[in-house]
């Protein structure tokens, strides 16, 4: 406790740590500090759960009162992409748990590696999410007021979009990560030049983290194409043009060999058919449908590709809830990445000791909660039958 002669510390009392390394002045012991932080983070998780609870109430309400909307809407979500993201997040939870273990044992180097893997998984998750989002925006699957399902995929207009045959929206979603990546690489090189090696290493790790996003985008595109025939997202390939489309079909044949071939045919069928009601307005955009091998059958819709005119007018509410839930979750992922970046820096500085590892433990708990919420979002949004 404070003693009578502690007055001389007053001038610099903004510094929390005036006795003992990493034990703030108002705590008596490392254990008291750890217990306080631990209870604090648990209570924070409580607030997070209640924060999400509003969206779960909205979900339950609309699913109960309008089950038909959910039946109609779920076909537009690709459960394999959702499953992939679930596995990515679970893996990141594993590496986070291993990171906590390393910190508890004071192994700073191991800890930094595990944290880096966790961050890469996090950005991969966001990359896959970006593919999903841009794909839906292409089809006009938006929130309630702007929902306008067309099944069309606008031809890319951006230079990058044209050359890579990817949706404009996906290009836009990649701009900030690309800038961040370039920024980190350049900053890392400059730090190296001025001999700030630790900083250079940190910035390079951040660049690697951001590159996980692009890995996620690539995997997302491939995965989405590969699972084309299986789900309603078939039209849905983000890839609007032939070459990659062919790639997608090839992969289809290999990976989905055991699936009903008729299903596959039907999907192609519909690609050709498009949506008659939009024929006139979107002739430009639908060029690629013509380019796709099609057998020219009459327009038909099935469970996976319902006729937009038969859909419930409030189907957009499902997607409002979908965007709110997954969007809020994605914001939490971004927050988590920032916190993990801070932990990575402190691991490089070698701060963790067997009696001081609290921050890793706390951020770890937060990260597992983000995973936990996704564990529920996945069946609630993607696995509706």
């Amino acid at each position, binding site marked *: 406790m404070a003693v009578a002669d502690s007055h001389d510390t007053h001038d610099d*009392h903004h510094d929390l740590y005036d006795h003992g390394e990493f034990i703030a002045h108002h705590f008596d012991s490392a254990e008291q500090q750890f217990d306080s932080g631990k209870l*604090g983070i648990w*209570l924070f998780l409580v607030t997070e759960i209640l924060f999400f609870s*509003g969206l779960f109430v909205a979900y339950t309400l609309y699913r109960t009162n309008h089950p038909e909307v959910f039946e109609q809407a779920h076909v537009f979500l690709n459960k394999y992409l959702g499953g992939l993201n679930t596995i990515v997040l679970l893996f990141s939870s594993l590496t986070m748990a291993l990171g906590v273990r390393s910190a508890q044992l004071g192994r700073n180097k191991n800890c930094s590696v595990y944290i880096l893997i966790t961050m890469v998984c996090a950005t991969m998750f966001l990359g896959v999410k970006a593919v999903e989002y841009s794909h839906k925006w292409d089809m006009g699957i938006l929130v309630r007021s702007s929902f306008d399902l067309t099944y069309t995929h606008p031809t890319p207009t951006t230079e990058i979009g044209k050359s890579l045959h990817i949706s404009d929206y996906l290009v836009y979603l990649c701009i900030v990560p690309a800038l961040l990546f370039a920024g980190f690489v350049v900053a890392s090189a400059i730090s190296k030049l001025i001999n700030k090696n630790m900083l250079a290493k940190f910035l390079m790790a951040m660049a690697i983290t951001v590159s996980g996003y692009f890995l996620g985008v690539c995997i997302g595109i491939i995965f989405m194409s590969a699972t084309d025939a299986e789900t309603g997202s078939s039209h849905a390939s983000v890839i609007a043009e032939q070459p990659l489309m062919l790639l997608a079909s090839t992969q289809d044949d290999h990976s989905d060999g055991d699936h009903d071939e008729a299903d596959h045919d039907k999907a192609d069928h519909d690609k050709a058919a498009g949506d008659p009601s939009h024929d006139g307005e979107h002739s430009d955009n639908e060029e690629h449908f013509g380019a796709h091998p099609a057998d020219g059958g009459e327009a038909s819709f099935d469970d996976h590709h319902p006729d937009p005119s038969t859909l419930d007018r409030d189907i957009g*509410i499902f997607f*409002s809830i979908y965007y709110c839930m997954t969007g809020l979750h994605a914001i939490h992922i971004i927050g988590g990445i920032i916190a993990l970046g801070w932990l990575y820096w402190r691991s490089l500085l070698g701060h963790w000791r067997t009696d001081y590892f609290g921050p890793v433990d706390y951020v770890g708990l937060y990260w597992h909660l983000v995973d936990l919420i996704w564990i529920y979002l996945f069946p609630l949004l993607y696995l509706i039958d």
Partner: protein
Amino acid sequence: MVDANTRQKLFGTPETNFLNCSKGWKSWAFTLDHKRIGIMYLIGVTVALFLAGIFALVLRSHLFTFDSTMLSDDMYNQMFTLHGAVMVFSFIIPSIPAALGNIVLPMMLGAKDVAFPRMNLASFYLWIIGTGCLLGAILSGKGLDTGWTFYTPYSIDTNTGVIYATFGAFILGFSSIFTGLNFLVTVNTMRAKDQGWFKLPLFVWSLYATAIIQVLATPVLGITLLMLIAEKTLHIGIFDPKYGGDPVLFQHFFWFYSHPAVYIMILPAMGVISELISVYSQKRIFGYSFIAFSSVAIALLGFLVWGHHMFTSGQSLVVTLIFSAITFTVAIPSAVKVFNWLATLYKGSILLNTPMCYALSFIFLFGIGGLTGLFLGALSTDIHLHDTYFVVAHFHFVMVGGTLTALLGGVFHWWPKIWGRMYNDFLGRVGCFLVFSGFNLTFFPQFVMGSRGMPRRYASYDPEFQAFHQLSTVGAFVLGIGILLSFVVLVYAAFRGPRCSSNPFRAASLEWQSSSPPDFHNFIQTPVLTDPYDFESQVYDEELDTYIPREFANPDKVAPRKEPVHH
């Protein structure tokens, strides 16, 4: 026993204290000291109180005559909305916990600070940003006319600054969560050695119960307001009936937070009153564990009654009955507290100084406010009284008659501890008298008007109500003068008041074992754990002219009490 020098050091007037230990604006703006943050909060909420109070006086002036043209109808709507929103989100919710609680709570536990000092400072800055956004609705030139409740679908359709205001309330919610989370952890992990849960002052119990609500309910407000912003900008169709949404769902969301929030406002006030009644009766609090558990009971029951705000909104009969029944049960823990306070007063050695006058006013006003709540919780009477001035009078009796009165009482009680200077007790009591009488003059006529059918939120009214409205307006100005006088008395005392000793009131909770003003670390030496309601543990020391724990006293120079009691 300790020697005279140590006694002087521990309980005498210190040379350095938390106010003068560092200087310059930075030492305040970036301070992590809970006492300084508490003082900044106190200044902040006072500004909010005056601002919203001015809105109220403008409203009352407008209502002086039934055909007044002082404000346009639109202006009137904006005025009552901002009065409500600023009072609720920026003033009452942070007033006692974040301002007074921040200063006192760690000291009551014998701790040096709250568990997370940086989060505490962040809470204050979020408060500033949030209040700024709330007021941004005016500065943007659009105003805000939804009422503080932001009910859909009107809040979606109106063109006023709903987004600024809801964003502000969202930020203020986080400020409140930070305070609550901090207090929960502080009470759990930072109590003095051997200070068990039942050795805590009741103010700590009430802040703990409040913090439970802040942590559990406020996040729901956050998501509600975010969804409202999304609804307003993107039209997501969750609350807006034009897009298939459910507007009543908003009311469920809003009141899931805002009813418990009512207990965020009143519980800390009850805690302050428990301290004041006991100290100024110099008598052990009656029914300690009942008061302690009734705080927790109110906090938990508070989550089960939100639907009583929605009796007329088309709610199903079953739910209405459940909510009405549980609403009545809230009266039980509230009454437990009132009866225990009255029992504490019985045969006590009562000192009628300013804080005690406020405490007694509280019991009277809260009694009326609480009992009229039962009228509104009953289904049949509520249908008649819903959205009338009766409701307005009811919640003002609880919020102003309860919380504001307790805040003033608490501020007067701890003021000498914070500044080391004494206020003018006569003027303090005059202020209290003006607040009490002005308050009753303002709001009692509103019960009568409301029961006769005067609807709330109307800019004009039938001439038959004019006499009541005029009484109410006069009362509002008396109340305003009373608050202003108290403010002047307090500010004068802080800078020019006579020096006072460490424990002038013979209180026994730990914060009175620090010097006045306290040291930066709160206690120069670990305080001796005393029962907060055992006043015999404090003895009068002639040399220092103060009450100190018996363990520190010089046995030759103490008296059990100083006669006559000086304050």
